[in-house]
């Protein structure tokens, strides 16, 4: 299997000087071409930071990130990103949002009649794929949150990115809508075959979508465990109730609890109490 993204001993320290935060420490991971990898972990464990580094929106302070064997140099159309919200352009219609990349110099290279037609066809196809055909001329803020995320995904797919990065894309949606979106994104993955890195704080989502689940732990942000998901490639909602699924979910949840927040919060409370006691005496 060809490696698409190679993350080698990556570290990231935020803030020069006074209070540096070690957001990532010695993170290594290979992601195969066309893989679907999900990332879970307590908040603040560096999931977003890692995804943004792959996307070129953030730079790492040590180690190396290679895409197709070449180090990344800033953001690029080969690595599209879908955000949790506020990324659509409210002044453009749904269709214009999806076709946004066609306005860019980069999207207009070798622009022949045939390309324009192909692009237009692709936009229509993506619109249909996302079930948005009826909303083509609507403005984004006329749509529900779920529909808006469909537009964002269609827009990200428009330029045929080889890598699709999604940072809690369904985090703001209600449970029913989220289930629909899960099957949709699996369908998109089968059809378009991007390499997909998907961040979530929902363990069930991570298992249902991912071929591998990467569990990260905070302070400093690092990879704790990588789980292979023991489910067939074709996922169905019913699988969420199988013993394997539930066992893995329980295991991951327990591990998150062990590695994360709770303990750190307790440590912090203890420390505060200690300081208070010292101050009192």
């Amino acid at each position, binding site marked *: 299997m060809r490696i698409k993204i190679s993350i080698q001993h990556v570290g990231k320290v935020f803030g020069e000087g006074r209070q540096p935060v070690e957001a990532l420490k010695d993170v290594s991971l290979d992601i195969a071409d066309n893989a679907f990898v999900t990332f879970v972990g307590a908040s603040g464990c560096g999931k977003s930071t890692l995804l943004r580094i792959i*996307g*070129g*929106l953030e730079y790492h302070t040590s180690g190396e990130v290679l895409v197709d064997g070449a180090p990344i140099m*800033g*953001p*690029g*159309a080969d*690595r*599209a*990103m879908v*955000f*949790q*919200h*506020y*990324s*659509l*352009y*409210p*002044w453009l219609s749904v269709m214009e949002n999806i076709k*946004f*990349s066609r*306005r*860019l*110099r*980069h*999207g207009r290279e070798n622009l022949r009649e045939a390309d324009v037609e192909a692009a237009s066809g692709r936009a229509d196809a993506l619109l249909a794929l996302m079930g948005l055909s009826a909303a083509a001329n609507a*403005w*984004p*803020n*006329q749509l529900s949150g779920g529909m808006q995320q469909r537009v*964002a995904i269609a*827009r*990200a797919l*428009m*330029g045929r*990115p080889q890598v699709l*990065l999604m940072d809690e894309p369904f985090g703001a949606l209600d449970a029913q809508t989220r289930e629909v979106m899960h099957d949709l994104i699996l369908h998109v993955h089968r059809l378009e075959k991007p390499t997909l890195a998907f961040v979530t704080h929902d363990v069930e989502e991570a298992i249902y979508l991912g071929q591998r689940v990467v569990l990260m732990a905070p302070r400093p942000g690092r990879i704790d465990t990588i789980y292979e998901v023991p489910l067939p490639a074709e996922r169905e909602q019913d699988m969420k109730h199988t013993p394997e699924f539930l066992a893995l979910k329980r295991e991951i949840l327990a591990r998150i609890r062990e590695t994360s927040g709770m303990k750190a919060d307790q440590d912090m409370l203890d420390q505060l109490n200690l300081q208070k006691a010292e101050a009192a005496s």
Partner: protein
Amino acid sequence: MPAAPRTGARRPGMWTIRGPLSRRQYWLFAALGLLVPLGLWWGTSSLAGVDKVFLPGPADVFNRLVAWYTEDDLMSDVWISIYRVTMGFVISAAIALPLALLIGTFRPVQALLEPLTDFIRYMPAVAFIPLVMLWVGIDESSKIAIIFIGTFFQMVLMMAEDVRRVPLAQIEAAQTMGADRGETVKLVIFQAAKPALLDTLRVTMGWAWTYLVVAELVAANSGLGYSILKAQRFLQTDKIFVGIILIGLIGLVMDQLFRLAHRKAFPWLYLR
């Protein structure tokens, strides 16, 4: 009389917190808010013993308005003032807009210009009059310059803030679609900031009008602000009233025009 059927929930009254107000009720209150002060003014001014020079009544002010219009060429005063304010405002906006885009987008430009602008905006525009007369002279451009000084610095800072408020996700989405720096500024940042920028223009337009009287302190012999100053010298209190009310009305009309333009230009913000 039979008791009205009890239906659990009722429409909340207008005095509930953030309660509803029908259109008719809105206009009723709006009219009340305008008529009560007018009535108070009229009442106070017609009390026995209140000198007209101290407080002219609505009728005196109206008569003065008519006299000014028929005998004293009111319209030329109005137009020259509109011209001065508009020119000062437009020049200010034309320079402030690109600067604000740069300040709100590039940190070095922000560091270079924002503290300086912040400093200058606290300097009183009136105090610049001698300098303006020295450097610009005493013709039309000096009045425009005063209005420019009064509005420009505030405008730059507010517009830069509008630009900075563009959601990062909108910018980064463009970058991961392959937009370069210029395209990101032109196709995303500027487009996204436009509604807020137009709103800032509307607010600063109001401020430009407040500098009119100051501007027409400089060797003017026409204009609403100048007329107010001259009326003060001749104790024509009613004329001062006319001038102030007219400036207020023109400002109100311009404000409404900006609001209308906002609704026309950015319809997606007014869907409900």
